[in-house]
């Protein structure tokens, strides 16, 4: 059965790669984003990859405007004739030194990545539960797994998000809501452009493949690439005196 998917963040990076894979296999997509012209170009890119006759639609939505989330969900539902899957890849990032120098951006980052993503998920949760069932897949990060020097602020936003997604899965799985938390390591996208590749750097398509497999199987937590599960297991168990010394 083809999925009916609402996507936030499909214009770039990991979201673009997820959308392309879903489009190629014939799922129906509705893209929500901040810039309608840009969304229209993304939709055209996806149309070229879709089976003949498949549709992709777009509408405006901004994670910095929580007051509009009601409408965003309604517009997507109208466009798709109801949706059963939501994929949120939207997010903000900056390096720790940059964030420390710019509190205004830090506030936006914390708000978008945590508070507003959670609020958006709350709208979606109600919608999907009201329909009986559905899947919510959200991109968090390995940065949320342990407080670490290079990602103190960004990691905190993702730690909160991961905790929320885990709780949601525990609370609503039985009622029909499948919640999926995807934790990528370093991915070569615009978000990280200019930063040198650390070990296990991945391309967005690899992450997209992992996220879609999790959606298909209902796996509540996946690392992408999978090696990060092991790496973070180790890092989570390093003593604090070690974490104070090392640079990662």
């Amino acid at each position, binding site marked *: 059965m083809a999925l009916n998917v609402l996507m936030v963040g499909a214009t*770039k990076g990991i979201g673009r790669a997820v959308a392309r894979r879903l489009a190629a296999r014939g799922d129906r997509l509705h893209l929500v984003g901040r810039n309608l012209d840009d969304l229209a*170009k993304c939709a055209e*890119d996806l149309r070229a990859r879709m089976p003949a006759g498949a549709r992709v639609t777009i509408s405006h939505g901004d994670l910095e405007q929580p007051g509009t989330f009601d409408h965003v969900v309604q517009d997507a539902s109208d466009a798709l004739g109801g949706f059963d899957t939501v994929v949120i890849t939207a997010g903000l990032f900056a390096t720790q030194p940059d964030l420390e120098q710019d509190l205004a951006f830090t506030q936006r980052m914390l708000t978008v990545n945590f508070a507003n993503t959670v609020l958006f998920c709350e709208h979606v949760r109600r919608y999907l539960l009201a329909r009986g069932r559905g899947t919510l897949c959200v991109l968090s990060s390995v940065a949320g797994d342990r407080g670490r020097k290079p990602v103190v602020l960004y990691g905190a936003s993702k730690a909160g998000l991961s905790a929320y997604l885990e709780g949601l899965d525990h609370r609503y799985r039985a009622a029909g809501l499948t919640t999926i938390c995807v934790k990528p390591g370093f991915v070569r996208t*615009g978000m990280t*452009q200019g930063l040198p590749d650390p070990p296990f750097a991945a391309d967005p398509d690899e992450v997209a493949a992992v996220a879609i497999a999790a959606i298909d199987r209902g796996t509540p937590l996946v690392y992408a690439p999978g090696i990060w599960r092991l790496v973070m297991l180790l890092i989570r168990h390093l003593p604090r005196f070690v974490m104070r010394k090392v640079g990662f």
Partner: protein
Amino acid sequence: MPQLGAVAVNTNTTHRLSGWGRVPIVPGYEVRSENLDAITRDVPLTRGLGRAYGDAALPAPGDLRVAGSVLADRILAFDSAGGLLTAEAGLSLDELYRALLPKGWFTPVTPGTRFVTVGGMVAADVHGKNHHVDGCFGRHVVSLRLRVADGRIVHCSREEHPDLFLATLGGMGLTGHILDVTFRLARVSSPWIYQEVERVPDIDAYMDALKTSAKSWPMTVGWIDCLSKGASMGRGVLLKGRWAEPHEAKQGFPTLGAQIPVPFMFPNGVLGIPTVKAFNALYYRLPRPHRAVVHPAPYFYPLDVARDWHRVYGPRGFTQYQCVLPASGGHAAVRRFLELVTRGGGASFLCVIKDCGPEGDGMLSFPKEGTSIALDLAMRDDTQRLVDQMNECVIAEGGRIYLAKDALTRPEHFRAMESRLDRFLAVRRTWDPDGRIRSAQSVRLFGW
């Protein structure tokens, strides 16, 4: 402060950039964004996937920042009836394969790796195994959206600013930043390839076989052993192919597998003469089915099986030398060139020989009617001298070299090969009087 939609500026000046051969390696870094329009406003050069071997995609001395197109990779329009495609310059052939080959469309011309961008394919006016039939990529390009030196965005085609358009085909990024490319895809009869393989005992037989098969095969290419001397000089293997007819095709779609990584740098000299000799002898004798239906990826892109395969050449890197010798010189010219190479002990892992059809309309486009010869050369102390000697031979034969591969050619040699150069530089001067758009290669060869 990096913000989405805006461009994070990387001020790390310790970064290095190189081409695929890793000769030369220069200071520089790439700025990447989905928004190619935004990042090309104030840089001297745009690069794609960095598969040019030498210094074509590197900043000139003193420049550091270049634009990287790879995130700008959307298909902007596709006409599924006629095959006309408009794409952002960073779209790779890898992505095009995944997106449109399942629908029966593919690029009409492909180089020997799928990790190239359409922008890079225009800038080098790339050619493939079907050059004798379909010409270069540029022949299939209808129009371009280009950011020129003064910052304006210009649409060009064979009708609109034809001088700019034709100078951009094969112009190695020196006329401006290619933003979008509109080109015609080819309809394929199936996504599989029908291939025939022929073993050929020496260079004359090889050249004859190439010529004969060109008449009935849309794609031909071959490999020869550059180390065998005397009677067996130029013994080789000729591959002939075409897209398989539906009734010949295998079941299902030929999906692309993951690449095998080359996880570390090999030591220098691993690909020295003994290794290459052994490889060449083995490759020549390797039993192969005479005819078979094969997967298009290993057919078009045999080297893409391994990721970062350039690491086997070691930290000193390597260079590729590719020239075309005009048809007028016949077999004798090819023989003279190969004698020079075998004498020079230019151990080449790969020596690829292919006949080229007539010259295209790209002003600096590489191929012309004759024989193209490509060699990979591990960097050694005498590599510059060998390249100089080969260039002198090419000049004497009336041939030319391929800029997408070049790192070592001297300016006076290039000028002696390229009668079209003045016309190209005049167009470049018209659109860029202050010489803002430039690369390490353009400064090396043209002084600006």
